[in-house]
């Protein structure tokens, strides 16, 4: 038990997050958010330099994923855990990627194929 607590403690001290590192990560998160606002408010809304569309959305999603990486890796400390634990907690998101692809295809299908047919009144007579 004593040994166990020692390893946990050494782990926390050895490669953890110092105060300097914390403010560094905060600076990165703040900078990325500032870029998002500059683009959304400035380039898109006020100056009309960039038009809304798939390329802009992809840009937002990439910035979002970078922010997510910094929060999970540094604030949640996952980067400093054992490799097998990192894999254990992240590999399941393959299913989320699959689900995204699946549901967006489904959404497009609903738009293109289900809305173009009207609903017919049921007269109540059948020919069987």
């Amino acid at each position, binding site marked *: 038990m004593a040994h*166990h*607590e020692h*390893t*946990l*403690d050494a*782990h*926390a*001290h050895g490669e*953890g*997050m*110092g*105060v300097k590192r*914390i*403010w560094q990560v*905060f600076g990165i*998160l*703040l900078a990325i*958010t500032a870029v*998002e*606002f500059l683009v*959304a*408010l400035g380039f*898109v*809304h006020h100056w009309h330099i960039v038009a809304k569309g798939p390329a802009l*959305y992809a840009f*937002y*999603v990439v*910035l*979002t994923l970078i*922010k*997510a990486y910094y*929060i*999970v890796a540094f*604030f*949640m*400390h996952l980067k400093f*855990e*054992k490799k*097998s*634990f990192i894999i254990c*907690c992240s590999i*399941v*998101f393959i*299913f*989320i990627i699959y*689900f*995204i692809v699946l*549901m*967006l295809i*489904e*959404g*497009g299908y*609903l*738009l293109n194929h289900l*809305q173009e047919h009207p609903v017919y009144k049921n007269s109540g007579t059948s020919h069987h």
Partner: protein
Amino acid sequence: MDSLSKLDEVKTTPWAGGREPWSIEYGKIMMWFFLVSDAFTFSSFLIYYGAQKFAQPTWIDADKIFQSIPGIADHGQPLVFVGIMTFILIMSSVTMVLAVEAGHRNSKKEVVKWMIWTILGGMAFVGCQALEWTHLHHVGFWFGQNPATGLTDPAAISAALQPYFTNDISYTAALQFSNLFFTITGFHGFHVTVGIILNIIILCMVLNNTFEKRGSYLMIEKVGLYWHFVDLVWVFVFTFFYLI
């Protein structure tokens, strides 16, 4: 004989048993597994939002619906208020990780200070969200409701919804946006509220010297994981509701 004796050898690899391959405390692992499952719940919500958006010929424009700064401007200020909310939540995430760091040094005084700032940040965020909900409810958006609900004349419906659309106007799209906005930000706000309660409980335990006696502030890390996760979810909600 030689190969047989090899079978009797005690393996010392991390996964050979009798040791902790991850060297993480049980409660912390369970918090991680809970957060992974919670991430699935939020992902399902957001993916359904995406699927609805793809299934509709038109959609609400975030620049137009999120234009108010409650108490200052009723419209004309797109994304400013949500910017303030985002900043508050990132800030409270930083104070939380500073509390964890102070816990590693067993500095009770600093843990208390940073926990109080984290709780205040969380309360400020939920307060901002309440103001935003109030504004949207005031103009006619709610669960199962949009500003054109109750109207029958097509001209009146499109006039009521026109301020929120840039492209074509759709009652169904406005309704689905409204339902999903209140459901998803509500579920996130509920998580923040739970986080505030957990933080207050942990703060009381710190003040009670519970962790001082235990010799470890590991509990701060566990509640910290939850708090950062709530911030993480907001990063995605912010992108998909307010930016895209």
